[in-house]
């Protein structure tokens, strides 16, 4: 569960102060599927960075699963990102010289999971998102949609409680976008909290709740009516990537 209290984020460039977020109060329950919308510069990415523990607030409280993030040091934030949060970026952010499998193994490299189990869990995660035949491809040998699915697999391998996606469909065509939203909806059904930022109303329509940002604060918070269901392959969960291999 996420609780934000009076979050203030001020960027200082020289003498100029910029209030990117001014007084955000927000509660996101476990299992929610939230879309954040709003005009450019309204503070959506700033919000996501704070939620994803990539950045710290200027003032206010951020509680993630009862853990007060304000007081965490940089390495503790790294550990939280590694253990609790999965990231999906607009520009995929895969390591370019590295195969899909190795990219997906990466988060497990940083929490000391053995090589054998890393391989198994990464293979399972890639299989789940339908990429079992692309394990050894490098990012430049994959389509945009496939790269984003690798990124999703990577975000899942450490069993995160929350998945952060900043414009995950921003670089994708509509077919790939629907594929990604299909995966998100299925993951959400499995209990993973999802927060995504999007500019596109039809993408937001796949979520359960839309939060509208304007000038660094929440303008409107609505429950999605007539929610769209993304058509697509069901996640291949015969081998559940979440099943703990004894470690």
């Amino acid at each position, binding site marked *: 569960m996420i609780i934000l209290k009076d979050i203030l984020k001020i960027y200082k460039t020289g003498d100029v102060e910029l209030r990117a977020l001014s007084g955000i109060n927000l509660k996101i329950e476990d299992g929610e599927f939230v879309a954040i919308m709003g005009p450019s510069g309204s503070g959506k990415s700033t919000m996501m960075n704070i939620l994803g523990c990539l950045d710290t607030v200027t003032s206010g409280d951020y509680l993630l699963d009862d853990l007060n993030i304000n007081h965490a040091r940089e*390495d503790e934030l*790294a550990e939280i990102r590694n253990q609790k949060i999965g990231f999906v970026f607009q520009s995929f952010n895969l390591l370019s010289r590295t195969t899909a499998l190795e990219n997906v193994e*990466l988060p497990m*490299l*940083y929490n000391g999971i053995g090589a054998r189990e890393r391989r198994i869990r990464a293979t399972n995660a890639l299989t789940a998102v339908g990429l079992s035949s692309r394990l050894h491809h490098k990012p430049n040998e994959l389509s945009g949609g496939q790269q984003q699915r690798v990124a999703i697999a990577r975000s899942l391998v450490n069993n995160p409680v929350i998945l952060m996606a900043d414009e995950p469909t921003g670089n994708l065509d509509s077919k790939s976008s629907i594929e990604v939203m299909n995966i998100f909806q299925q993951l959400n059904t499995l209990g993973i909290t999802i927060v995504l930022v999007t500019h596109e109303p039809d993408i937001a329509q796949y979520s359960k709740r839309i939060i509208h940002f304007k000038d660094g604060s929440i303008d409107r918070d609505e429950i999605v009516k007539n929610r769209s269901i993304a058509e697509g392959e069901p996640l291949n969960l015969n081998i559940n990537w979440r099943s703990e291999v004894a470690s």
Partner: protein
Amino acid sequence: MNFLENIRIALRGLRSNKLRSVLTMLGIIIGVGAVIIMVSIGQGAKASVAGQIQGLGSNLLIVTPGQSNTAGVKGGMGSLNNMTMDDVNAIKSSADAVASVAPTTSKQAQVVYGSENTSTQVVGTTPSYADVRNQQASIGRFFTDQENQDNAQVAVIGTTVVQDLTGNPNTNMVGQTININQVPFQIIGILQSKGSSGASNNDDQIVVPISSAETRLIGSDSIRTIYVEAKSSDLMDTASGEITQILRQQHGLSFNATNDFTVTSQTDILSTAEGVSQSLTLLLSGVAAISLLVGGIGIMNIMLVSVTERTREIGIRKAIGAKRKTIMLQFLIEAVIISMLGGVLGILFGSGGSSLLNKFAGMTTQISTSPIIMAFAFSFAIGIIFGVFPARKAAKLHPIDALRYE
């Protein structure tokens, strides 16, 4: 994060930039190579000096014609043929600190045995040579004073000559006759093998009576070198002084005239050899220190470039949970691998260089494990020292700034 994993990542990075990696290593390669060559020359010189001393005989003084410039380095050697048998006899009879004296003359000569022939150094001397120069006959015998007086055509030959004439250094040629510059000599003994020291091979020579050499081979009675054995090592300086006094008198040199001969002792030879190897060592240490420094700076430079190039990668790694120390370690390991690889190549290059020097420059070099371990340690230290700054820079990057970097 796993240590081996870091090494794999680092190696992949290096492989994808082969030329750059090699160029970066160049400084280390040259530095470490210089260290290896330097030490191998130093050790070789020591071994060779020890060998030479043993090869020369003990308590030895060497008298050569001509004035020397600096200790042991002969100037105008052979230009003067002013030493005679009279000088030798004078030393023998008047110098109290002298045990024995062996005059020598020598000439490069063509030696024929049956259908085989070879070119070697023929040394004409007296029987005392065997003791003074510690060159005994291992098979057969050395020639006698009588044979020397009789201009006897007898020879004691070195094993390298035996090898050249028969194809086998162990052939017993005693009793055989060889032609030296078309003059027949009977072999009466084989010299004990001493191996080569420095550039000279003690086994590649034929020793004959000096009388026979002068009358039958050289045709003059000039003496090239007089070997003198002092009575004890304490008397070396006394003997040297006596010889100088006697020869100045013999040559009728006035009070302020410089010597027209040179007396050299083993100590002089030793210090010359050490002096040469010391100045070489100094030069090479300079080269090594500078190249290692330049190499280290090169590594730092390339690591800084690498950190900048891979800012986004660092951002990704941090976003998914890499801690500062992990990123730091990754780049540090990369720097250490570059410098250690450079070190290994430098060791290969240095060993190769030192054996080339040995083969083609006639220098005695010796490679041992201690400089190799030292080189490893050096390159490790350089990797750490010059890798820390770039690695810290990478570790301190803010994940968001790094992710935004284009």
